[in-house]
């Protein structure tokens, strides 16, 4: 008999402890050091951790058992993600295991499943996402990148953009236009493209923090075998929506927020503002914000677990989660104040031995992180689009 209870069950607690123990002995210390201090992660760092998870069968931790996943429920997934986040594990690059894999599982052919899923689940193959195009913004259905069928190939021409970490990508899943008839949504197909194919060019976009986190990807007469089409031609929009519906509570990123709030407190202490009433109050407000967000996440998890309530508040999670990310990064920067202003790129590398102005090298990435996280209220459906969605739900 279920009843309202904040505490996790003994089984859930045991599960958490097992995860914690495993992460504790398998997460490389040099990687967690970088995560805890917002230092630069290399491709190798990210893939090293992905492979460790892959070997354990946990890179696809949300995968169903039939595809090699652990078969966890919503709460177990949450506990796993929380333990990873708190321990300072890098976020799993989601494009393979979280985004394209569920689409391949649901709509791909058995052949595609056998061909692609092992490489995704093991962390061997780096996937990228090809959704956004120049000018598309929040209007994802305005796909222009064209795939023309010629025999057993598609010829792909066009451009994708905002491709996160695309400079490392080996494969990319793309929305491409295969028909211009009917509504914009109806002529879109879901195509898997080998990024080593002739005609694929990746150009990094430098962001405001000086980092090349996203890319433009150009397709110039790229030949793609038709058996790389997922599902049916012109039905790609349906699959993409299916994929978006898989983004649930993790969009709030509350586990990371908890870790970063603790880091904020450490920074505030080091900078001597933790005992300043005004600054401390700002942290206190954020503390409540984080607890409230976590409770919201837990409510959603509970509803998922029991299937009893229906809580259509994913939009709220996105809005609040992104606002909180921006706020903690802002407060970290403000805590360091003038000592966050030097822009010394080398200082963002682990192991830098220089003398950072003010003497605290941990301050080096603070402003950059603040700048970088401005993206969070823009991407994944801007917060304005999310408010449209929420109000539609409330007002009809």
């Amino acid at each position, binding site marked *: 008999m279920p009843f*309202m209870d*904040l505490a996790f069950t003994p089984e859930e607690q045991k599960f958490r402890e097992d995860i914690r123990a495993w992460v504790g002995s398998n997460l490389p210390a040099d990687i967690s050091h970088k995560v805890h201090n917002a230092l630069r992660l290399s491709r190798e760092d990210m893939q090293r951790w992905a492979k460790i998870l892959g070997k354990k069968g946990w890179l696809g931790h949300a995968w169903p058992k039939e595809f090699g996943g652990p078969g966890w429920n919503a709460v177990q997934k949450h506990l796993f993600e929380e333990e990873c986040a708190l321990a300072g594990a890098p976020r799993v690059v989601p494009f393979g295991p979280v985004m394209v894999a569920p689409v391949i599982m649901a709509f791909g052919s058995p052949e595609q499943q056998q061909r692609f899923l092992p490489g995704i689940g093991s962390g061997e193959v780096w996937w990228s996402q090809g959704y956004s195009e120049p000018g598309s913004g929040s209007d994802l259905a305005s796909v222009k990148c064209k795939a023309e069928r010629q025999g057993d190939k598609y010829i792909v021409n066009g451009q994708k953009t905002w491709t996160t970490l695309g400079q490392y990508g080996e494969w990319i899943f793309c929305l491409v236009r295969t028909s211009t008839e009917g509504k914009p949504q109806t002529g879109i197909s879901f195509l898997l493209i080998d990024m080593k194919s002739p005609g694929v060019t990746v150009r990094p976009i430098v962001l405001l923090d000086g980092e090349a986190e996203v890319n433009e990807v150009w397709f110039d007469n790229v030949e793609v075998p038709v058996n790389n089409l997922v599902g049916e031609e012109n039905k790609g929009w349906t699959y993409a929506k299916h994929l978006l519906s898989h983004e649930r509570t993790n969009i709030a990123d509350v586990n990371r927020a908890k870790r970063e709030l603790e880091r904020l407190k*450490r920074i505030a202490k080091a900078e001597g503002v933790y005992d300043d009433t005004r600054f401390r*109050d700002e942290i*206190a407000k954020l503390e409540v914000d984080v607890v409230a967000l976590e409770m919201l996440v*837990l409510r959603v998890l*509970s509803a998922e677990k029991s299937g009893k309530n229906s809580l259509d508040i994913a939009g709220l999670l996105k*809005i609040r989660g992104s606002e909180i990310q921006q706020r903690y990064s802002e407060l970290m920067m403000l805590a360091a104040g003038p000592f966050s202003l030097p822009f010394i790129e080398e200082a963002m590398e682990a192991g830098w031995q220089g003398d950072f102005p003010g003497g605290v090298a941990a301050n080096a990435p603070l402003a950059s992180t603040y700048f970088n996280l401005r993206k969070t209220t823009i991407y994944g459906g801007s917060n*304005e689009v999310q408010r449209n969605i929420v*109000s539609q739900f409330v007002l009809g």
Partner: protein
Amino acid sequence: MDFDFTDDQEQLRDAVRKWVDKAYDFERRRGIAKAGGFSREAYGQLAELGLCGLYIPEANEGLGMGPVEGMVVMEELGRGIVAEPFVQTLVAGAVLSGYAPEAVKTAWLPKIASGEALVVLASQERAARYQLDVCEAKASSALAGWTLSATKTVVPAGDQADAFIVPALAGGKIALFLVERSAAGVTTRGYGTQDGGRAADVVLKDAPATLITLDGLAALEHAVDIGIAATCAEAVGVMDKTLAITVEYMNTRKQFGVVISSFQALRHRVADMKMQLELARSMSYYASLKLNAPAPERRAAMARAKYQLGNSMRFVGQQAVQLHGGIGVTDEYIVSHYFKKLTQMEMSFGDTLHHLGEVSARMQDTAGVFA
């Protein structure tokens, strides 16, 4: 970790909601407010539903239920902005059950559970504002027993209650006493409150009193925390209904030839109200589920919850009025009454700035619900 209500809890919710819908509509409430802000008859109906014994053990003729049931009931009373101070009944039931000597329990708990006796907290003093450890009331012990001298103000339904739970200094420390309104040396002066309810100034002059506990501050803090959790739940009910009223109005009211719910700027305001409501609901759950935690953890949780609820109440109340336009500031239309209720609740058991201070003072290195 589970936020599902049991079937019993759902039935409890339905029962209270039905009573509110049928027996406590806007017109009745208006009549009660005009008549002074408290209806013994309405209060009696809550007792008939069995609600007054919610936090009282079955041994004392109560229901022996817990914080989740209290939350469910308060949410529904909130939806109807019920003016009778039911929060006080939850507080009195729990505090007497938890801290009073057996004789006091036996004498009072069955009467509270049956609705025969309304017992309220009389703690507010002029110098204290929201501080619980500031107390000028004095208790004296003599052969005949304790007597109290005190001036307590804005006591909920103070001229209607049958007895008061009163903090007073005994030997320099705060102790908690029970004082009957009919006792010698007790005078009350009642008045309406901004939310349509009732309160009173209560003056005690050497009034005979019964000791509840000498560990009065701990008991008072517990009492206030029960009040906070109940007020949070009530606020969720008030806000839920406030949003519903606003949505209905926006989908009806036309300006420039279209319903005002078609304006994007107003739609986003509604999204923000929904956000505040759901954050508030989440923190109300949090408060109720932490009510039985050890005192330091409990106190920290209540401060966090009341801080969130205060912000939410202010935003939802103000925006509901704003989105209604002119009709929102009339007495005739219901939304202003919800707004006034939210305003008063923000100042009940400590306002938002007060609880920000509490959160700040109690901050730890850790973060999150389970920290």
